């Protein structure tokens, strides 16, 4: 169950999921759990109410992802280094990166006893891509040939087919995927939640299936008491490599992280995903070895609204200067309490192709040089910048600190532009109404550096909301995408990343860390690249 969740965002953040505050280090491993391991023991995890019903192709946010991924397994997964591993697939191969052949492992069964076949995948994907079913993850299939037949680009248009021509079932355990164009890292995408298989029963009543999902994963769905808890139990017939070492999981819903933390200290909940700001400065002290402090594959940046008069013809030197005016070391240690690690590039750790110090000097704090660069570049238009953020996400503290740092180092006036909530923030970003700079960030979809570059800085890419566009860069990205091998593609993207300092599409700030903890009842608690606990590895101890 490692890896393979989604591009997630913490939506709305149950009233006050501020992220802020401490430092030090806890490590995983042995801890407070004393008694013998109970292989059937059930433990609990703090988890908010999923926004959508538990359908893999309709799950994007972090709460739903963790629950769905406990119930569904995909073809592949990846390890902590970003290396691909096979789960439900025996093999995923391609000679030209365009036509892919998937062979399934035999004897896999859904939780209702029906076999997992090539059709389970092909039917699920065709259904998910079909615009009539309005699935949030439908665009994940857009690389597959025939996607536009089931999902036309024009609003309101009806699909002309109900199957993508690129998907062909060869036999019960083999199918092929033909893409529109070669994509060397396509196999990695198959680890994403959206590519889960679905049993036949799903299609009879998708709505009911979302409330009571039947999957092929390590855990079997048991019950969902809305806004209170979701219970899953170990699936004993599970054939995958990540068979659960415990009896099951209860996902418990809390209104705030502070309350969850209190319950953790009272051993009423076993695993947390995050510590609230009130407790961050003290949680290492409180929990000792049960405190978790570990980087995961996500980055925070501030991006430029390139469509504004201010940045339309920006000289990259000015942008570099602003970046060098930010004292990342001090801010992460103080205001952010050690919950972030200063970034030195645009690609996060734990991702294939991560290279240390990719951005060179521009992420080093140097007030004198920052001033000089801004001056050389002709100064900041208006000598004032603002950073847009959403007030309900706990960003105010660091935005204020970054602004303070910029002003003190360069004399450029800087204010936070707090939008009331995520929706208002998003609307301004998607509607191209950002006045100057905005808070941005990225959590990996799949652990390849392309995900942190192509999906963010390509002209009109999904994650490119600042309107950044550069022909030369687009060409380099296209070339890297059509590289002969995965290795080659990754290398080309590494070169592109090094080149980004000359364009400065955004200012890298810091990488995220998991700051969490667990109770004395459990051990072997680790977290994956998404910052989610690896549920199947957790061991429950007898009292």
């Amino acid at each position, binding site marked *: 169950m490692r890896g393979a969740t989604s591009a997630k965002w913490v939506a709305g953040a149950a009233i006050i999921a501020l992220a802020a505050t401490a430092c030090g280090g806890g490590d995983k491993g042995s801890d407070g759990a004393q008694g013998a391991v109970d292989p059937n023991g059930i433990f609990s995890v703090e988890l908010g109410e999923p926004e959508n019903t538990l359908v893999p192709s309709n799950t994007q946010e972090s709460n739903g992802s963790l629950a769905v991924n406990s119930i569904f397994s995909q073809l592949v997964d990846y390890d902590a280094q970003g290396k691909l591993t096979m789960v439900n697939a025996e093999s995923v191969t391609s000679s030209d990166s365009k036509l892919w052949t998937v062979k399934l492992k035999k004897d896999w069964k859904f939780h209702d006893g029906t076999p997992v076949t090539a059709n389970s995948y092909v039917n699920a994907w065709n259904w998910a891509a079909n615009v009539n079913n309005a699935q949030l993850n439908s*665009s994940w299939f857009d690389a597959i040939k025939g996607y536009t037949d089931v999902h036309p680009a024009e609003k309101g248009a009806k699909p002309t087919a109900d199957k993508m021509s690129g998907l062909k079932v060869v036999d019960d355990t083999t199918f092929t995927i033909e893409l529109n164009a070669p994509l060397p890292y396509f196999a990695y995408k198959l680890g994403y939640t959206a590519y889960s298989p679905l049993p036949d029963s799903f299609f009879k009543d998708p709505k009911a299936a979302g409330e009571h999902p039947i999957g092929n994963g390590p855990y079997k769905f048991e019950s969902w008491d809305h806004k209170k808890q979701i219970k899953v139990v170990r699936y004993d017939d599970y054939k995958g490599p990540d068979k659960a070492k415990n009896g099951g999981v209860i996902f418990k819903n809390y209104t705030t992280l502070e*309350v969850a933390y*209190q319950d953790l200290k009272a051993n009423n909940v076993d695993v947390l995903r995050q510590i609230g700001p009130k407790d961050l400065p003290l949680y290492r002290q409180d929990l000792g070895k049960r405190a978790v402090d570990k980087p995961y594959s996500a980055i925070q940046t501030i991006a430029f609204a390139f469509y504004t008069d201010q940045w339309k013809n920006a000289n990259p030197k000015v942008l570099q200067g602003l970046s060098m005016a930010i004292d990342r070391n001090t801010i992460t240690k103080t205001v952010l309490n050690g919950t972030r690690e200063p970034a030195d590039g645009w690609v996060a750790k734990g991702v294939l192709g991560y290279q240390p110090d990719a951005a060179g000097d521009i992420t080093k704090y140097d007030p004198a040089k920052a001033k000089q660069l801004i001056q050389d570049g002709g100064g900041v238009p208006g000598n004032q910048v603002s950073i847009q953020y959403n007030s309900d996400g706990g960003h105010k503290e660091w935005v204020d600190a970054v602004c303070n740092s910029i002003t003190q180092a360069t004399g450029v006036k800087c204010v936070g532009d707090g939008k009331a*909530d995520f*929706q*208002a923030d*998003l609307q301004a970003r998607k509607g191209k109404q950002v006045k100057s700079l905005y808070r941005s960030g990225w959590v990996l979809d799949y652990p390849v550096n392309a995900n942190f570059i192509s999906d963010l800085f390509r002209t009109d890419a*999904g994650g490119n909301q600042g309107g950044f566009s550069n022909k030369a860069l687009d060409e380099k990205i296209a070339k890297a995408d059509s590289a002969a091998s995965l290795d080659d593609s990754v290398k080309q993207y590494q070169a592109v990343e090094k080149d980004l300092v000359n364009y400065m599409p955004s200012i890298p700030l810091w990488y995220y860390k998991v700051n969490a903890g667990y109770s004395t009842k459990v051990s072997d608690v680790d977290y994956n690249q998404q910052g989610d606990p690896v549920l199947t590895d957790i061991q429950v101890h007898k009292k």
Partner: protein
Amino acid sequence: MGRYVARRLLQMIPVFLGTTLLIFLMVYSLPGDPVAALFGDKAADPTTVAKIRHDLGLDHSIWRQYWDYMSGIVLHFDFGNQIASGRPVTDILSSAFPVTLRLAGLAFVFEVVVGIGLGIMAGMRAGRLADNAILIFTLLIISVPVFVIGNILIGTFGVNAVSLDENTSELIVPAMVLGSLSLAYVVRLTRTSMAENLRADYMRTAIAKGLPRRRVVGVHLMRNSLIPVVTFLGTDLGALMGGAVVTESIFNIHGVGGTIYESIVRREGTTLVGLVTILVLVYLVMALLVDLLYAVLDPRIRYA
């Protein structure tokens, strides 16, 4: 009396429509698109967005949407479905309301019993030590915001968050926090009203007639003094239920407050209007009861 009640019930219809329309318009005018937001930071696929909007009827004009929504409620008791989860709003309401009703009910009892009690004590001894002590007590309550009291209380003095079972006994402390501000109002209103009426002519007359003090205070004084208090209390139950956002979040109560907050930030218009509809009904019924109580408390007020 019967005619009065009938007339008031008829009056409720425009109020009901007015409030729901007002909140509908307010939510409609907010920046943001609940459907596009389902995609988070990711690019929202326009075709999928259009399809979801069409399925939910969000592509109609605001007036048409309001009409569809209200006729759904009135004709089929159908409050629509949530945008994100697709769950019927009636499900959301029926899981959120019971616990909030218990919480607000406890808070209400707390402010009635303690509030009127303290108010009477202060009013009967206006200007004396007890009065001043109670004044200072209420001032302290008013001057510290609920979120500060709640955040200080939680985790200290053995005050714990409410468990997922949400037992009534666990709700007592949160209810006291929730009701504290209203409590201060009740104390102040009762005290003022008591102190005033103590000097009224009818009191002198009643005493002069030789009525026992207990009867004078218990019947004459109380009846007249409670009018402003009852006015306040009548409007308060609904306000307590709708104002529990902060208290519920601090104490881990999964009720109306959190649902309201979530509906606002996610622009779940249907859920929000559904919640407000119920709150309005609670309020209207209470307001009617208050007006009827006026007639009981003050014989000079008569309803034809």
